[in-house]
């Protein structure tokens, strides 16, 4: 599965990057979103994949604790998801304001925010 996910992550990065290279600021933000997913999945995969053993110790015998999924990447990704959302929300609203102020979503035309 790691190998398959490696290709998935690579594909996500490629798609995200392609969108970020577009002139439309709307596509840029979609690219940013794809990039975020790619990064999360990258960390998740590299932390090692474990099937059906969530890092929850409730009712687990002590010796089985060593086999649970690695909680550290999960904690990192959880933070990343939430922060990513904050950034994306802010960027979206900012872009909306910018596009409305300048009257275009073409980054090449966005040379000043004076209206």
């Amino acid at each position, binding site marked *: 599965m790691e190998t*398959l996910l490696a290709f998935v992550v690579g594909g996500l990065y490629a798609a995200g990057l392609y969108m970020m290279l577009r002139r439309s600021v709307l596509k840029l933000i979609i690219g940013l979103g794809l990039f975020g997913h790619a990064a999360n999945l990258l960390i998740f995969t590299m932390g090692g994949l474990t099937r059906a053993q969530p890092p929850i110790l409730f009712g687990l015998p002590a010796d089985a604790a060593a086999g649970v999924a690695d909680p550290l990447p999960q904690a990192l990704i959880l933070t990343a998801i939430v922060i990513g959302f904050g950034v994306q929300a802010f960027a979206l609203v900012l872009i909306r304001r910018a596009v409305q102020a300048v009257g275009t979503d073409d980054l090449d035309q966005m040379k000043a925010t004076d209206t």
Partner: protein
Amino acid sequence: MGLVSAVLSGFVLALIAPWIYRIARGATGWLLAIFPLALFAYFLSYIGAVAAGDVVRVSYPWVPSLGINLSFYLDGLSLLFAFLITGIGALVLIYTGGYLKDHSHLGRFYGFILFFMASMLGVVLADNTMGLFLFWELTSVSSFLLIGFEHEKESSRAAALQALLVTALGGMALLGGFLLLNQAVGSWEISELVRQGDAIRTHSLYIPIVLLVLAGAFTKSAQFPFHFWLPSAMEAPTPVSAYLHSATMVKAGVYLLARMTPALAETALWTGTVTAVGAVTMVFGAAIAFRQSDLKLILAYSTVSALGIMMMLLGVGTAGAVQAMVVFLFGHALYKGALFMLAGAIDHEAGTRDVNRLAGLRSAMPVSAAAGLLAALSMAAVPALFGFYGKELFYESLAEDYLMPVLLFASVLTSMIFVAVAVLAGIKPFIGETTSSAKQPHEAPISLWLGPVTLAATGLVLGLWPSMVDKSALLPAIHAVLWRPVFLELALWHGLNPIFLLSMATLASGSGLFIFRSRLLRLFSWLDALRDCGPRNGYSLALAGLNAAAQAQTRVLQSGYLRYYLLIVVATATVLSGYKLLQDIESLSFGRLFDVTFYEAAPALLILLAAFMATRVRSRLAAIAALGVVGFSVALVFVLFSAPDLAMTQFSIETLTVILFVLVFYHLPRFAILSSAWTRARDTFVALTAGGLITAIMLKASGVELHPKISTYYIENSVPLAHGHNIVNVILVEFRGLDTLGEITVLAIAAVGVYALLKFWPGKTETR
């Protein structure tokens, strides 16, 4: 310890010199001159020991891990230079007080001069090549500061930059040479290198070593074709020209080659290059000096020529030639320092440096006139002045080898011009009819004439009694270069030998050159056209080219468009890490491609498909939907691989994101195709390559054995320490609770930002 503080104390004094000037004002020059005089006396105390063949060496660990020491070494050659640096330095400090009287930045100037003095002492005393290099560069820096002292003037700044670029570029070459030397024989110490001469000469790195060291020496000592910075450096105030650009710093290249002679010389490469470059510089400098009319430029080009003579003699390298070089060097420092300082005094008092307008100053400036006469006679090598001995030995050393008629001829020609130039610069301004000038000339104050008079008088006294210096100061210096006993006895009268007759003929024909100067200049005026195709032009072209290249490069890299920055960063990273990764492509593990169940493969393939769709679709809503599919599929992956918390968060956040996107995009324009097909193809290629690289890195990394995980600690201590069973939650709120607080803060700020952007905007307030 003494040697170290002798060098380093100058730097300390340089730092506090501006404050001394604030207190001492007009007396600062005299006061500061005590320092070099004290050093002069200090070095004088070594003269007996050094003449007896002793050397003083001190060494302190500096960069022990690289085997680099702060070591100093005092032998005859160092001592001779130390005398010149401190002796002329004292006179120049006094001279500065008169020349730059009441200049608003005089305090700073004293600091720069002392900074230079300390650096130059460092160059001639350093035993470690890295130390020598450091001090060498410091002299370049101080020269830059001093040439650009009148920094309001554009020409000053350009000249300062030119001198710095040329000498620092040479300094870089020198550093390379020193590094290679260390590689060849494994030592940083010059005192060790000179003992390894045979090993160095037969080493495979010998040729690059010699070329690099020569590049350093030639740029510093203004040898053709790097000579042009020296005349430009005449922009500097005259004390600087007298001190750095004639008496001391420009001789650093000569010093270096003399110092390296035992290690590098006596091969065809060395002899040929040094002799040829020196000879060309000698003739070229003299010829140009002859046609100048600005006093300082005359002296500058004649200095270039004199440096050429010294280089040529070092190149010839016979015992006689080295003797001639050392004696000539000493004499040159005396008379050229005096002439430069006089040029400044004349400029100061008569208001011009144009030799065609200067005349008849002898009645107004009798003391200066006497000093000028003595210095000029010394430069012209008239018997009974010290300059005579240098010239005699110079002729002798070339005549003793009958294979050098060309060099001898060139030398006689140069010496003839020297006679003419000496008369032109040192005598002509004082004789003849007084011309009307803007200023009423009068004798310079004592601070301005003390220096030239002292140096010129020294030339006379030592010219009459050369035995005062020949065995004590000059012979040890010759020994340090030659490493074998030679005999030196300077005598005024050798009998009526051919060399003496040649000298007299030179004097006579040189005087003739002076008399017919204007006629000769007219005769050769067609050569003026060549002025614009010299090395100076090459410098300007190179500088302009460099600037243009930098500009073009900046225009490409700093386009101002986000996507080009991204493109460059990503492409560079991809190419560089991809290159490294390709070298062991076979270590990529594809092992676990097929241990996948159907329900695991489904979300993975869905992600790929949705990501592809997001890039292709033309409708905004479809793009958002595709992004949502990616997000929810990622959540599914989290579900399948034991990350329930992530899955829950991802589901809720993704839902919010999709809603937000739809709400915002509703107000925004439709997608348009803004890029050409070619651009899209290029971006596709870059994006796919970068994505491929990420995949490759992941495949490579999955084969890497990780260190014991930090996670183990969290797993083991989650229950005992935090009494929580959901380890991910425990990490977030307990172990890394402060981080989570930071995250909450970020979210809060983002929320405030979003609210502010939606709430407060000009359009809304107007409608209210």
